[in-house]
């Protein structure tokens, strides 16, 4: 879905919704998840519909997810080794 720049070489293992998975590093959590095709960031608490990053610059709050135990904006948080992320989304909604 997204072409990565070949200059990105860092790889991290993170725990996403209880599953260990490899993601590219040197980028935000939102970018790293998009890079592996995980396009859903959360379920809207009011509309109950899936959401994806909209602005990627800290304004829209559509990429809020629980990162290492705290609700944070994935686009404003750099991904690191061993990060634990819970998106709280329904089964099969988060991309491949």
């Amino acid at each position, binding site marked *: 879905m997204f072409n990565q720049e070949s200059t990105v070489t860092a790889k991290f293992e993170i725990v996403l919704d209880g599953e260990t998975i490899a993601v590219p590093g040197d980028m935000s959590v939102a970018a790293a998840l998009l890079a592996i095709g995980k396009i859903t960031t959360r379920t*809207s*608490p*009011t509309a109950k519909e899936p959401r994806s990053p909209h602005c990627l610059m800290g304004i829209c*709050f559509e990429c*809020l997810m629980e990162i290492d135990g705290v*609700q*944070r*904006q994935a686009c404003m948080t750099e991904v690191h080794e061993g990060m634990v992320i819970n998106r709280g989304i329904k089964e099969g909604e988060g991309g491949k």
Partner: protein
Amino acid sequence: MASENVNHNLLTEHLSYRDLFETDGDNQVEKIDIIVIGGGIAGAATALGMVRRGGGKVVMFDEQLPSQRLSRGNFGLTWFMPKGANNPTYALWSRMATMHWPEFAAKLEEESGYDVELEWNGGAMHAIGEEQFNAYGESVKKMTDVCREVGLDYPVRMLDRDEFAAMVPGMRLGDEVSGAMYSAEQGHVNPLCLLGAMRYAFQKRGGVYHGGTSVSAITPKGNGTIELTTSKGKFVAEKLVVAAGHGSTRLLAELGEQLHIYPQRGQLIVTERVKKVLNFPILAVRQTMDGTFMIGLSTEDTAHDVQVTVEAMNSQAKGAIRLFPELADLNWVRGWGAIRVMTPDGSPIYEQLSEHPNIYVLAGHSAVSLAPVMEKQISDWILDRDIAPQISQFSNGRFNV
């Protein structure tokens, strides 16, 4: 300039063009029945009321100053409690306005297609500790008496902690919360939708809206009309309504009228959207239809400075967390400051200038709550249809000593 004259003659033959044609200089001046300066909630509600009542050609100017946008920066409460403790007329006026909010909103939604997001499930003011709870109880007694004397009910009561907790089942009360003052007949709206709906309905009924237009002079003419000099040219009207918030001070000074208003800053905190759990607003905390918590209860005298301060954010956040501890876990998304239009006694000003009786002035706080009386009683007053007995009590002259 011959070519311009040709164009000019062409335009006068096409009225539809002519309506759009404004010029400063020659005799091409639009005839208007009523001009409203100020397109905020007060101006828009009054202008809408006047076009609904067949007030003729009504034109509204809005300067759209980035600094003075209280109609966008407010908390959106439709509230009467406990306004007017020292002024039964204002208590009655607020109560009367609030009572009519549900039908006002329904009509506006029907007319404009906008949902103003009115939630009409009541409203509360929480108390911390026993002393504050007792003080609130005294205030309710006093206000009930004040209202009874003018033949009005005051549907407000004290909720003890348990009853208050039971009424907000989606939230946990902080340990220090002793109870709340509560009325079932209050609510809140989305002020942005309210403003949009009123301006849209106004134009749909034939009103003319000029955004981004500054008025530089009000000149009463000998023939009983009023001439306005604006950034879009000159306009002449039979009547003028000045509802320009703090901008009214400048406009009226030239007419020799000192308007008794002063700026008061309030600040707000806006959180991320979460599940809707709070089903009615508390004076300091409300949850909007889209799940956002808004927190605000600050008053500061800072002239026209709208900046957000760490101190106010901090104390408001602390106050909100003392009420609902769960709020501590939420992300704060935005904050802003806005400038209230305050009067020395807190009640609004409705003034018909004695020197120029076709110039009306509307100023003061609580335009959201008072929108229904602006739409009805105030527009009836300006149109000489019906003069509510309370209006004379809200003159600007009451502050002249």
